[in-house]
C-alpha cells in the first residue's frame, strides 16, 4: 500500500464534497443509481479483499450479497427491526457465514475454489426458493420492503436520505479497509497471495488469515446486499443468480485488482454499462462485459485504477523532469532514469 501523498488528502476532500452536494442537483432516479454505485463499491471492495489482496478466486459472491439482502428484508418485514439496525446485523451474519465457508475453502486452490464458488453462485436461487423456507423468504415472490423516511424531519426526500445513508456506510467501510490493508494483516494477506509457502515459513498463520479474509469479504458484501435491498425495496431469488456474481467479478477486474480506489471505478462500470447498453439490445451488456474481460487480460491486466495511476506517474515524472531541467543542466541526464522508474506500474503483479 502506498503512503498518502500530498495530493491525496485534498482530492479525497474534493471527492467527498462532490459526493455530498451531487444529489441536490440531479433527479431522484439518478440519485437511486448513485446509491447503487455506492452499494456495489462496498461489495467490490469486499471481493477485492478476497481475490485482489488474498488471491482466493470467488465466482459466487452474489450468494453473500443475497444473504445480506435477505437478512435485512426478513428482519425488517417479519420482525419490524428498524432499517438502520439491519445493515450491521446483516454484516455480522455474513461475517460468520463467510468465515464458516472459508474453513473448507482452505483445502481448495485456485481453479477448484473458483469451481466451488461458481457452484455456490449457481445454486443460490434454488436454495432461496426452497419451500420449507417460504414463511421466511417469501418463496419465488420474495419480500417487499417499505422505503424508510428521513429521520429528524430533514428537508430531503427519501431517495436522497438513502443516498447519504449508503454514503456514510461506504465511507466507513472504505476507511476500515484502508486501515486493515495497510497494516500487518494486509501484508499477511498479500504475502499469502504471492507465495503461500514462503509466508507460512515466515510465521504467517495462513489458515487463520485466509478464513478471516473470506469472513471479512463476506461481511462487506453482506452489508452491501442489505443496503442494496433497502434501496431497491425488494428481494427475490431471481435477482441473485450467477450473473450477479459474474458482475461483481467483472467489476473488480475492470476497476483494478488489489486496489481500493478500483472498487469505485468497477462499481460505476457495472451500474452504468447495463443501463446504457440495454438500449442497444438485451444481450449487449453481457457481450460488452465479455469483451472487456478478455480485452483487459491482454491490454490492461490491472484494471482502470492502474491505468490511471500510470498516467499520473507519467505526468508527474515529466513534470519532475522539466522542473529539473529548469533548475540545473546537470540533472537532465538523470531525467531519463527517473522517467523509467515513473513508468513502472506501482504494485507489481496484482493478478498473480
Amino acid at each position, binding site marked *: 500500500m502506498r503512503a498518502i501523498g500530498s495530493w491525496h488528502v485534498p482530492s479525497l476532500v474534493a471527492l467527498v464534497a462532490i459526493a455530498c452536494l451531487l444529489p441536490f442537483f440531479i433527479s431522484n432516479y439518478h440519485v437511486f443509481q448513485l446509491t447503487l454505485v455506492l452499494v456495489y463499491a462496498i461489495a467490490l471492495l469486499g471481493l477485492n479483499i478476497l*481475490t485482489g489482496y488474498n*488471491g482466493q*478466486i470467488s*465466482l459466487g459472491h452474489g450468494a453473500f450479497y443475497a444473504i445480506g439482502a435477505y437478512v435485512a428484508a426478513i428482519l425488517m418485514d417479519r420482525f419490524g427491526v428498524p432499517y438502520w439496525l439491519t445493515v450491521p446485523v446483516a454484516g455480522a451474519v455474513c461475517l460468520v457465514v463467510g468465515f464458516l465457508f472459508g474453513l*473448507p475453502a482452505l*483445502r*481448495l486452490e*485456485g*481453479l*477448484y475454489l*473458483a*469451481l*466451488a464458488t*461458481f*457452484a*455456490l453462485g*449457481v*445454486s443460490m436461487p*434454488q*436454495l432461496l*426458493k*426452497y*419451500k420449507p423456507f417460504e414463511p421466511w423468504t417469501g418463496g419465488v415472490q420474495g419480500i417487499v420492503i417499505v422505503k424508510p423516511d428521513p429521520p429528524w424531519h430533514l428537508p430531503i426526500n427519501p431517495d436522497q436520505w438513502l443516498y447519504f445513508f449508503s454514503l456514510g456506510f461506504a465511507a466507513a467501510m472504505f476507511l476500515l479497509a484502508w486501515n486493515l490493508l495497510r497494516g500487518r494483516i494486509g501484508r499477511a494477506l498479500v504475502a499469502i497471495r504471492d507465495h503461500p*509457502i514462503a509466508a507460512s515459513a515466515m510465521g504467517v498463520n495462513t489458515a487463520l488469515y485466509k478464513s478471516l479474509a473470506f469472513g471479512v469479504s463476506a461481511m462487506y458484501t453482506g452489508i452491501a446486499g442489505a443496503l442494496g435491498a433497502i434501496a431497491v425495496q425488494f428481494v427475490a431469488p431471481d435477482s441473485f443468480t*450467477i450473473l450477479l456474481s*459474474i458482475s461483481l*467479478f*467483472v467489476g473488480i*477486474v475492470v476497476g483494478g*485488482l488489489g486496489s481500493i480506489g478500483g472498487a469505485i471505478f468497477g462499481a460505476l462500470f457495472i451500474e452504468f454499462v447495463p443501463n446504457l447498453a440495454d438500449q442497444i*439490445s*438485451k*444481450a*449487449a*451488456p*453481457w*457481450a460488452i*462485459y*465479455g*469483451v*472487456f*474481460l*478478455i480485452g*483487459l*487480460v*491482454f491490454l490492461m*491486466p490491472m484494471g482502470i485504477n492502474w491505468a490511471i495511476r500510470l498516467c499520473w506517474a507519467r505526468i508527474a515524472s515529466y513534470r519532475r523532469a522539466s522542473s529539473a531541467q529548469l533548475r540545473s543542466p546537470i540533472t537532465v541526464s538523470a531525467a531519463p532514469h527517473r522517467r523509467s522508474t515513473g513508468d513502472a506500474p506501482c504494485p507489481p*503483479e496484482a*493478478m*498473480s
Partner: protein
Amino acid sequence: MEELLNQVFAGLATGGIYASVALALVMIYQATQLVNFAQGEMAMFSTYIAWALIQAGVPYWGAFFLTVGFSFLLGVAIQFLLLQRIRGQPVLALVVVFIGLLVIFNSLAGWIFTYTIKVFPSPFPAEPPFGQHYVSAHELGATAVTLVLIAVLWAFFRFTSLGLAMRAVAQNPVSSRLVGIRVGQMLALGWGLAAAVGSVAGMMAAPIVFLDPNMMSGILLYAFAAALLGGIDSPGGAVFGGFLVGVLENLLGAFVVGNELKLVFALSIIVGVLLVRPSGIFGSVQVTRV
C-alpha cells in the same frame, strides 16, 4: 418399484448428457490443466447453429454433422487465437478469460437468436420403443449416441498415432516437443474435439430441456460434479461419474430431497468431493513437493 425403475432409466438418460459434457471437460483438463467454465455455453451456441441449419431446411443428420464440424473449428480457433497467448499466466487471468468466453457466447446466442424458448427436433421417433414405458426413444437414442461417441474417442486415443501424440502432449508437453510433436497443434486438436463432444451433448439435451441461452448452466454444474466425482483427469471416470450423478440426482430428487434442491445437490457433491477426495473415484492423486 416401477417408480424406482422410471427414475433410474430417466437418470441414465440425463446421465449420458452429463457424461458427454464431463468428458469434454476432462479432455481439456488433461491437455491443459484448466477447467473450461465456458464449455456449457459453447455447447449451447453450437446447438443454436444446428437449430438455424435445420430451420434453413437442412435434414437433421446433415445439420448434426455440420454442427459437429463447426464446433471443432470453433474450439481450434479459441485455442489458437486466445489461449495460446495466455498460456503461462496466473490462474486468475485464465479464469477471467474463461468467464469472458462464457459471457460472450451466452450474449451472442441471445443477441442473434433472441431469448424466446425454441423447440429443437429429436431425430428419434416419438413413441417409446419395444412397447415399454420406462424410457422414451429419445432418451434411449441419446444414451446410445453418447456411448458410440465415447467408444469412437476411446478408439481414436488408443489406436491412432494422432491420439497417441495427444496423450503424450497431455502427459508431458516438454518431452513431447523434444520428440518433435507440435504441442500447439495437439492442444488445438484437443480443444476442437472437446468442443465437438460438447456440441453433441447440447444437441442431445436440447429436445429435453428446450433451446434457450441459459439451458446449459444447470447441466454444466452437473457435469462439473460428474467430472470431479469420477476423477478430473480420468475420461472413463468422467463417463462413470456422469451416469452416477444422473441416477443419484433423479433418485434423491424423487424420494429424498424433492425436485427443488437438485442444484444444491450438485453443489454438495462438488464441495464434498473436493474436500474428502479431490482426485475423485478414478482419478490419480496429485502429489506436489514443496
